[in-house]
């Protein structure tokens, strides 16, 4: 008996990933600093399967039927929150969304009391965003639900970093030895911090580029201490862009801007805005990324933001698949 040539798109044993017996132990998603390369790859592969579900006419599978996902946001958000809620619904979970500005928080309820209340109401997963770095870690000590960090202060935003990795991998196939320039307000950026962990674990070279005042203080010694030799710092945009495979812009966080960090917005635009001309320094098939929301005309020019190299909208769509993968994986995870 001869074997039939598989049609296009059919997974053949050669294209299948090796039978994975990776042990997934995470019950919470707090940051990527405790993720191994195998774990990140498992998330990205799982997201691929979820992406297939999203192409169906009925985008729903019964995986998390009977589970409840509560999103608890103490800071404004459009895409992250909508994306987590859609992900939960696509997996047939029930979702409840709490808006801290309209909840008992305004009556003075503490974070821990709010968490306990949500647990008592029967939540299985709590997706939380909080302005205090470390708040989700505190949450894991007080409730038994799985906690997913959807952004805590300046510290971490793991699901965003994972969807960035996923987007890059879909376009460029791998992350090993890619040159990634992360440009903008590094100091206030939780996205940059989580991406530093995720991208260096996946083998990319990272250039952090910002004016001195917007680089986190002590970044050099932090990088040395954490043994991240693939991450370097650059204060001029041109060398950072040279031969870059990926350029990730960060929003100038005007709401977090302390006075005196920048001489003027105009100077920042002059020196750091990603323009078509500057982008030509990067590789021809460079990916332009931005975690959003975009300040068009400040960190990025409108032509580049909507140009051919931009994958900014695709990042948003990939977010749903990544968050479905995370919910699926932690539903079966153990402790950590």
């Amino acid at each position, binding site marked *: *008996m*001869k*074997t*039939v040539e*598989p*049609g*296009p*798109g*059919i*997974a*053949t*044993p050669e294209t*299948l*990933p090796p*039978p*994975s*017996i*990776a*042990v*997934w*132990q995470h019950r919470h998603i707090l940051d990527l600093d405790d993720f191994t390369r195998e774990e990140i790859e*498992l998330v990205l*592969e*799982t997201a*691929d*399967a*979820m992406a*297939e*579900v999203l192409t*169906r006419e*009925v985008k*729903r*599978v*019964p*995986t*998390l039927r009977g589970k409840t996902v509560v999103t608890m946001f103490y800071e404004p958000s459009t895409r992250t929150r909508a994306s987590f809620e859609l992900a939960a619904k696509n*997996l047939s979970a029930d979702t409840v969304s709490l808006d801290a500005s309209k909840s008992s928080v305004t009556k003075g309820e503490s974070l821990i009391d709010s968490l306990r209340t949500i647990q008592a109401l029967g939540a299985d997963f709590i997706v939380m965003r909080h302005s205090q770095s470390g708040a989700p870690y505190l949450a894991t000590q007080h409730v038994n639900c799985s906690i997913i960090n959807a952004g805590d202060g300046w510290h971490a935003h793991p699901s965003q970093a994972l969807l960035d990795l996923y987007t890059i991998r879909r376009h460029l196939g791998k992350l090993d030895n890619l040159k990634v320039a992360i440009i903008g307000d590094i100091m206030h950026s939780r996205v940059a911090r989580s991406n530093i962990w995720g991208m260096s674990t996946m083998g990319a070279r990272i250039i952090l580029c910002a004016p001195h005042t917007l680089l986190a203080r002590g970044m050099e010694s932090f990088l040395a201490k954490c043994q991240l030799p693939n991450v370097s710092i650059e204060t001029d945009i041109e060398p950072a862009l040279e031969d870059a495979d990926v350029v990730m812009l960060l929003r100038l966080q005007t709401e977090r801007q302390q006075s005196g960090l920048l001489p003027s917005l105009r100077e920042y635009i002059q020196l750091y805005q990603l323009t078509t001309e500057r982008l030509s320094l990067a590789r021809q098939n460079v990916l332009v990324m931005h975690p959003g929301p975009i300040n068009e005309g400040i960190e990025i020019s409108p032509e580049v933001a909507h140009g051919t190299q931009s994958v900014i909208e695709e990042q948003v769509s990939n977010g749903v698949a990544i968050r479905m993968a995370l919910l*699926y*994986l932690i*539903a*079966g*995870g*153990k402790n950590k």
Partner: protein
Amino acid sequence: MSERTLMSPQDMHRALVRIAHEIVERNRGAKDIVLVGMQTRGVPLAMRLAATIQDLEEITIPVGSLDISLYRDDLSSLSLKPTVHRTDIPVDVAGKQVVLVDDVFYTGRSIRAAMDALIDLGRPQSIQLAVLIDRGHRELPIRSDYVGKNIPTSNNEEIKVYVKEVDGEDKVSIIAPAKGVADENS
């Protein structure tokens, strides 16, 4: 632990050729037949069945792959996570005679999940089941239409199907636990 071979490569080949003939006979030809292999080892088995049917009937048989991880009923008890593969069926299953192909037929729970997964993709005219090994111990009222070999087993034995495309060789073996090992009822 001792491993004993139950089927040689020739035995597997003969069983698959017979199943291919049975599929054609039962469906009076191969028109509208879609073979869907269950990840991982059902997929190469489905491809081999399709090749044989194509030789017999001289029409192209679509072959797809189905992953049931998202439809399982025991998600929270899994701690070893196998990768979720993509489901990939090249044609619309609506109105087709879909033959699910799997290596080992055991409790019936994965077939239950597979039927749910298939029906989410469309409404097939019928769903039939072809398995290489039926080892008994059903927990659901599900039966197979085509069987390569019936192998009565006890719950603490393990059936292993090796296929060339995945494992580098073709064979079926049974693994009996060492004496004194408790029945884990896997």
